[in-house]
């Protein structure tokens, strides 16, 4: 190997380029599949008489379409049912493992993969889903692809692609008490913009990133795509290894020791160069709320909806977003009243997220505000079981939240969980695009703790005033 210092990304790229031809061909270690973006790909294989080259590297689950209410009832939406049936028969026909509804493994593909230990450091991971960037939290190169590329990977286990550039997002310092990974990534996207990462793979580095738990790292990497990046990644370390050890698909015994040894070598070398670097000061990040229709419109909860820019296309976009969201510039965020709360998704549907929301409910006491309909949707069936074993479901239901089965649910509203026109939702998901959670629905992105606080109060509140982290909160002093 060359002595040239390399980044984490460089090492993964170099190790996965197949042969010397052009365009570069990247070998894919793990291909995750779900029901929405795969039927046309399997159909393509069938038509061309091709097989799945590496079924043992291909894992499927059902997440986007499934109802999160009683699963013993038939699915009333015919097209959804047909799509789910199609994945079942494709998995059978092509010999692909399917973690189906009714098993503990079923869940949102980006929650299930890590939880099962499929996702490991040093791997290339793809899925026909843009939030595949989540898996980069393990030091994997993980990115979303379109359906034609899904077919390509099924048939060849490879993907032709141009080498992306690298962007280091260096987060110095430490997050203040009561400020979460969700707030951090929203602050980062507000800083670099929804296309700030276009053409790049982001590596998150720095003191504040090293201190994040695995689940928090997944939240951060998950939303890399909302900054337009191909992927987001974090170098694997003891936090990663401790989380992974003993998972069903993780190596065990001697193979584990050897793997950890190898994974330790993946971190970016001293002196390696990124194409760009952006610095963020973690201590300045406060609990965030988005006001507009892109994830870059996050502002601190103690702040106000920003003024409309003087001119240019930004002015048009801001006016349109304000109108869509039913807001006025200058309105204090804490005065905005909400109708719905959604806690879940691949961004914030893991056990720690549910714990954080439950902790706020325990600290505050009381019940969901009478105007508000609030829903908790665990990211996987296993998360649901674990949460129930800890009694979290009771904390939620006693306070008046609905406790659902796992799936994508109201993150995109492909199943029956949608906002009515004009309804305003505090959501722990990742996209506040127009209509994302239902036509003319209004989505504000927040952390699980902030969502719980909003549910109880019927409006946004600085969660630190509930949890007692409000000594001199960042940005409030």
């Amino acid at each position, binding site marked *: 190997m060359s002595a040239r210092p390399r980044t984490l990304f460089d090492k993964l790229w170099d190790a996965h380029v*197949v*042969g010397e031809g052009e365009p570069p061909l990247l070998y894919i270690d793990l291909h995750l599949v779900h029901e929405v973006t795969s039927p046309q790909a399997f*159909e393509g294989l069938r038509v061309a008489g091709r097989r799945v080259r590496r079924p043992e590297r291909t*894992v499927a689950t059902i997440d986007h379409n499934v109802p999160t209410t009683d699963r013993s009832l038939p699915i009333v939406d015919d097209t959804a049912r047909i799509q789910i049936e199609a994945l079942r028969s494709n998995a059978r026909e092509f010999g692909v493992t399917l973690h189906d509804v009714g098993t503990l493994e079923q869940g949102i593909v980006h929650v299930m993969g890590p939880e099962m230990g499929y996702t490991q450091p040093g791997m290339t991971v793809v899925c026909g889903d843009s939030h595949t960037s989540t898996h980069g939290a393990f030091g994997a190169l993980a990115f979303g*692809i379109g359906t034609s590329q899904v077919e390509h990977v099924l048939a060849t286990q490879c993907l032709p692609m141009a080498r992306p550039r690298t962007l280091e997002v260096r987060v110095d310092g430490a997050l203040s008490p009561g400020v979460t990974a969700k707030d951090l990534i929203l602050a980062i996207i507000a800083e670099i913009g929804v296309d700030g990462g276009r053409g790049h793979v982001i590596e998150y580095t720095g003191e504040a990133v090293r201190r994040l738990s695995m689940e928090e790292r997944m939240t951060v990497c998950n939303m890399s*795509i909302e900054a*337009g990046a191909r992927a987001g990644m974090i170098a694997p370390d003891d936090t990663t290894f401790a989380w992974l050890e003993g998972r069903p*698909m993780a190596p065990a015994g001697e193979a584990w020791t050897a793997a950890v040894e190898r994974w330790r070598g993946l971190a970016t070398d001293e002196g390696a160069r990124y194409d760009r670097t952006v610095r963020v000061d973690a201590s300045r990040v406060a609990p965030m709320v988005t006001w507009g229709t892109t994830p870059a419109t996050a502002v601190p909860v103690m702040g106000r909806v920003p003024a409309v820019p003087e001119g240019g296309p930004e002015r048009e*976009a801001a006016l349109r977003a304000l109108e869509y969201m039913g807001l006025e510039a200058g309105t204090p965020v804490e005065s905005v009243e909400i109708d719905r709360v959604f806690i879940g998704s691949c961004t914030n549907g893991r056990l720690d997220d549910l714990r954080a929301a439950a902790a706020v409910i325990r600290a505050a006491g009381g019940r969901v505000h009478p105007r508000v309909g609030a829903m908790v949707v665990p990211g996987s069936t296993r998360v649901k079981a674990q949460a129930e074993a800890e009694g979290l479901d009771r904390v939620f239901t006693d306070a008046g939240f609905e406790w659902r089965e796992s799936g994508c649910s109201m993150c995109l509203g492909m199943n029956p969980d949608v906002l009515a026109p004009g309804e305003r939702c505090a959501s722990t998901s990742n996209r506040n695009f127009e*209509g994302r959670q239902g036509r003319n629905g209004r989505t504000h992105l927040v952390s699980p703790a902030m969502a719980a606080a909003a549910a109880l109060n019927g409006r946004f509140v600085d969660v630190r005033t509930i949890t007692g982290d409000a000594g001199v909160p960042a940005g409030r002093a």
Partner: protein
Amino acid sequence: MEAVREVNGIVAALDRADVDTDQIIPKQFLKRIERTGYGRFLFHDWRTRGDGTPDPDFVLNRPPWNEARILVAGRNFGCGSSREHAAWALRDFGIGAVVAPSLADIFRSNCVQTGIVPVVLPEAAVVGLLERAGRAEAGAPLRARVDLETMQVTLEGGEHHPFDLDPHARRRLMEGLDDIALTLEREAEIAAYEALTPRGAPAAPG
């Protein structure tokens, strides 16, 4: 895939930045298991009013722009979800080229897979195009030609703008190549790679 050498036709202007794929094709249309038939759902929530009737003000509902072949939009077009259905819907509607100051990464590659020419032009050129296409009368819409041979966008009247495209993407479009067949031709390399870096199931990566 059909080979594309040039796209010739009416230019429709969508003067918005950060148009995401949820707008291009909303989720309720992703449940189908076919690759075709998405054109009538293109920009569904913008093209229809609350009661489901077409909004006569939306550009792609207004003749002659309902027959547009080239769509010009603001920066970061196609951001968000990886759904290839967005490209399928554009293609199915008749759009053969999308022109913007920047296109989101996954969308751009989905365009190439679908036979849509992704054209990135400097911001100033796009602003000019949006303006010209936007103020054109129904009787005289702006027409343009996107030529992959010369790598130029030529507007009616002669104004032209060169653009860049990854040479592999360009070749695939122009020759209508089956991407998967191309990779399968590299089978020996792939097999050698797999032999050199033995990996079991993902449970035991090498």
